[in-house]
């Protein structure tokens, strides 16, 4: 069903006092509502980085005392934010995009499986990232 250009209408409505617009026509209806800012999820959703396999989660390199990431830290795309250990092998947990670290969801030394949630990230918006 062809729709009017919703983005264009939204733009026109911005700055007016109109909070609700309903259009009914032979082709269908459209409802545009201007919700208060508090309810609007303006920021992109948290990304949860999950484990790609079974192993032991490491929040730091075994030789190091310092953790790889901590909540609040900014990370770049493909940055190593954790490690997965299988026997003597260490594989990286990588940030899928530029982000700030929201929190670690597993503890250092915890055994994880495929899909276990490891780290929560707030992706950086393109303005913030640049």
């Amino acid at each position, binding site marked *: 069903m062809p729709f009017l250009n919703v983005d264009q209408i939204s733009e026109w409505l911005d700055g007016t006092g109109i909070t609700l617009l309903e259009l009914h026509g032979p082709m269908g209806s459209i409802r545009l509502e201007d919700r208060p800012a508090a309810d609007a999820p303006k920021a992109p959703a948290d990304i949860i980085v999950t484990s790609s*396999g079974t192993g032991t989660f490491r929040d730091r*390199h*075994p*030789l*190091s*005392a310092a953790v790889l990431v901590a909540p609040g830290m900014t990370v770049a795309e493909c940055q*190593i934010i954790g*490690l997965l*250990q*299988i*026997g*003597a*092998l*260490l*594989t*990286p947990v990588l940030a899928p995009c530029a982000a700030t670290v929201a929190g670690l969801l597993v503890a250092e030394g915890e055994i994880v499986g495929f899909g276990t949630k490891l780290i929560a990230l707030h992706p950086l918006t393109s303005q913030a990232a640049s």
Partner: protein
Amino acid sequence: MIEILSQTALATVQDLGRHGALGFGVGTSGAMDEMALSAGNLLLGNNEADAAIEIQVFPFTLRFRQACAFAVTGADCAATLDERPVLPWWSCQAAAGQTLRLGVPVAAAWKASRAYLCVAGGIDVPAVLGSRSTQLRGAFGGHQGRALQQGDVLAVGVPGEGLRMTGFGLQPPALVDRMQQDGVPAVRVMPAAEYGCYTEASLAAFWGEPWKITPQSDRYGYRLAGPALSPIAPLELRSHGIVPGVIQVPPGGQPIVQMRDAQPSGGYPKIGTVIAADLWRLGQAPIGSLIRFMRCDWDEALAANARNRAYLDEALRLIGLHRLQSGRG
């Protein structure tokens, strides 16, 4: 090609050593920590015995003149590639023109003193008498038979078929098997021929006391400080073959552990031999640190050899699996 940028001392090209030339008076040389060198090579799809650069004095800086996969094993040197941190014991990719800097070893989980810069394809210097290790005494092998200097340019070999990817690592064996006695790093020792020639008090001190690695310690041998070891009667021996790990006691009573550049024969009395399986641990012990000796027998020493072998075999297996699973075998 790799270009050495920093003024440096005591960095040499080493592999797993030169064997079969003892009869010419040529000792084995080779990496002080052969486990680190082997592991670095496995991370890069190299032969275990491919040549690498052993670094003992830090900071150490080099430039990759060509794109090159590499790994820094041994001590954690807070390494950076173009000032961005790279993990230790981890395979990395350098682009042409990038600079690698190894800082002073960070003594967190493991106090180590030597690092190994391994490259895919190995360091390409001519093999002399079957090895690329540097024979400092006699000045042959490695890079012109000498320690590396600022401005030296080293060739890198052609990477093997095995290498398709980087970005994974290994847990160092030092963390797998911690060897300590009363909180002091320890190595296992088998008694040697003149063991029974020493006084009870000397033997008790040998096993019971910590020994300090003095500043007069290097790739030739570690001079230890501690109680004087006294023979029951003065000993004067004929020259005989020795190997790295042999603990000699000169008349002064302070033991010297022969290390990788040890001469292949000597005449001082031998109280014991650090077992081959633990030489890498001693090779990483820093100047000024303490070491303890733990007595072991033949079977225990063989088992220790087997355990080292198992670590490397398992590492190779896991790396192979990881490559397959990542779809870039």
